């Protein structure tokens, strides 16, 4: 008993150190500094001015709302795009090909986000693959703008996040007994009914799990909005970046960081409420 207790403490120390030093203390520090600002005399005092500037300046909360809407949109898109793929890989294609196809899907992850995003720049640019091809076959005369738009930004965000939707969804679909689909069909259910009543409810934990990961990755992403969205993109991480590294206003940056944290927590909480899932069940 005694030695197992020792082992318990020994094993819990790294976890506690990680939590306290790398997560709790920085957040407290961030939280405290978000309520501090220089007064007219240049002295640090307690203040709400960091949060006030967020609400006063239209561009800030416009960016904030824009980020939330796009992040939710990309999450939904990720589900719509990946669900047929996940279903195909788990239920249609034979097992030996499925693992090979899965490997292909994982390739973008090996390269890293920055390189993949630059890849999309090459594809979507004015003289990129798509425009050159369309000009070559004669559909258009002058390149049309794909890069540095919300479309290109959405493509980039989707591309780098959708794998995190596909994997949990595949895991839940794998555990779906095929005879359940047959039973529903035997009882007269149409394909749409089977999808809505059997497959989706069964895959719901995986979908919720994937949606949370995708949403958090997207809302906190900086690379895709910055490179593919261009200067006009309204992404809140860029505002945080600007506060920290352009205007060196760390306190406002801290406040913005906290607002982003609140936003993603609130959206995830609402999504869990709406889908009837519980946080402790997600990930099982």
């Amino acid at each position, binding site marked *: 008993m005694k030695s197992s207790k020792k082992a318990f403490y020994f094993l819990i120390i790294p976890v506690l150190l990680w939590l306290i030093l790398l997560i709790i203390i920085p957040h407290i520090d961030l939280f405290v500094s978000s309520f501090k600002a220089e007064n007219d005399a240049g002295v640090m005092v307690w203040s709400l001015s960091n949060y006030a500037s967020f609400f006063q300046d239209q561009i800030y909360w416009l960016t904030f709302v824009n980020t939330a809407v796009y992040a939710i949109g990309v999450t939904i898109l990720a589900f719509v795009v990946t669900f047929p793929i996940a279903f195909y890989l788990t239920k249609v294609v034979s097992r030996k090909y499925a693992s090979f196809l899965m490997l292909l899907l994982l390739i973008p992850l090996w390269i890293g986000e920055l390189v993949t995003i630059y890849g999309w720049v090459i594809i979507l640019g004015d003289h990129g693959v798509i425009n050159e091809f369309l000009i070559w076959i004669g559909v258009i005369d002058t390149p049309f703008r794909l890069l540095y738009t919300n479309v290109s930004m959405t493509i980039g965000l989707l591309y780098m996040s959708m794998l995190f939707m596909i994997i949990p969804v595949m895991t839940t679909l794998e555990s779906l007994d095929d*005879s*359940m689909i047959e*039973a529903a069909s*035997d*009882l*007269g*259910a149409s394909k749409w*009914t089977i999808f809505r009543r059997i497959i989706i409810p*069964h895959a719901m934990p995986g979908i919720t799990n994937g949606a949370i990961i995708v949403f958090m990755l997207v809302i906190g992403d900086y690379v895709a909005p910055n490179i593919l969205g261009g200067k006009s993109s309204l992404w809140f991480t860029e505002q945080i970046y600007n506060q920290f590294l352009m205007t060196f206003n760390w306190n406002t940056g801290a406040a913005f960081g906290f607002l982003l944290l609140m936003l993603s927590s609130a959206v995830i909480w609402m999504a869990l409420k709406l889908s009837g899932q519980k946080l402790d069940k997600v990930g099982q």
Partner: protein
Amino acid sequence: MGNILEIKDLSKHFDDFIAVDQVTLNVKEGEFVSILGPSGCGKTTLLRIIAGFLKESVGDIFIRDESMKGISPEDRPVNIVFQSLALFPMMDVYENVAFGLKRKKLSKEEVAERVNDMLTRVGLLGFEKKRINELSGGQKQRVAIARSLVMKPSILLLDEPLSALDRKLREHMKVELKELQREIGTTFIYITHDQSEALVMSDRVAVMNKGFLEQVDTPHNLYNHPRTGFVAGFVGENNKFIITDKSDDTITTDGGWELTKPGLDFVPTVMFMRPEAFILQPDEHMQDVVRFEPTIKTILFDGANTKMSVMLKSGDEILISLPQNAKFQGLKEGDTIQIGVAYDNIKCYKE
């Protein structure tokens, strides 16, 4: 009453493999028919073709004189109880049973009435709001059967639904299922590899081997008058001997046991004798009996099913039922005993 189901010359090929081989089977309205065979004999394939999940290669199926060619599972007047039961865990008991009725767009009141009626019949009234994972094995079984029966199918197909239950419960469900079928009157086609399930419940049993129907008969005939060696060996316990020689009325086993079996007009290759066909210490005046005097090798005590393994001088071993009455209490290993077996109970086949 006419035939509710007619299977005509049905075959199913998977590449080179023949899963179902020229099966012809007629089932009458209200009949309980089992398809019995070892695993891999094609019985599940046959069931899935009847249900419409698989397409036949050759032949046709008629339900109430209507060809089922090209008719999808959801439009066939049959319902299936799956081996895994395939209940919907995301729904409660009521929703499971109501699932098919709701697809038929019946009124809410009618759905409720039929579901409640069905739940009463299977003894699950009051379980409506229970989740599937809160039920016991036997209760799940009944929900699965209720979910199919509530659709009032012409034929209910059951794919080894009792195989997941423990032995006690299985014995109980056998009786229950038989009674339920008699009460409701729906035609049941029951797939199983368990011969006891097939014999106890069915009006008729179709024994299937390598995709082929060996014999379709009443349980009684199947047991007492098996038509092929496979049926004799598969249905019930049996002693099997390989026959190597026949001259006049004397046949010889591969162990060297010579015995008389008159009336054979062919040269058999196998011979079967049921453990209970042997007469212990037969009366001297008994006619038409093969007599021999083996040594008792072991006694396998199992209450009323007690058997003894005996050894002939030729070296052949035979399993013989040992009645648990006072007359044979004294028998012990190493004793020799007079045994007889009537000619009629010696079944010979050419394989």
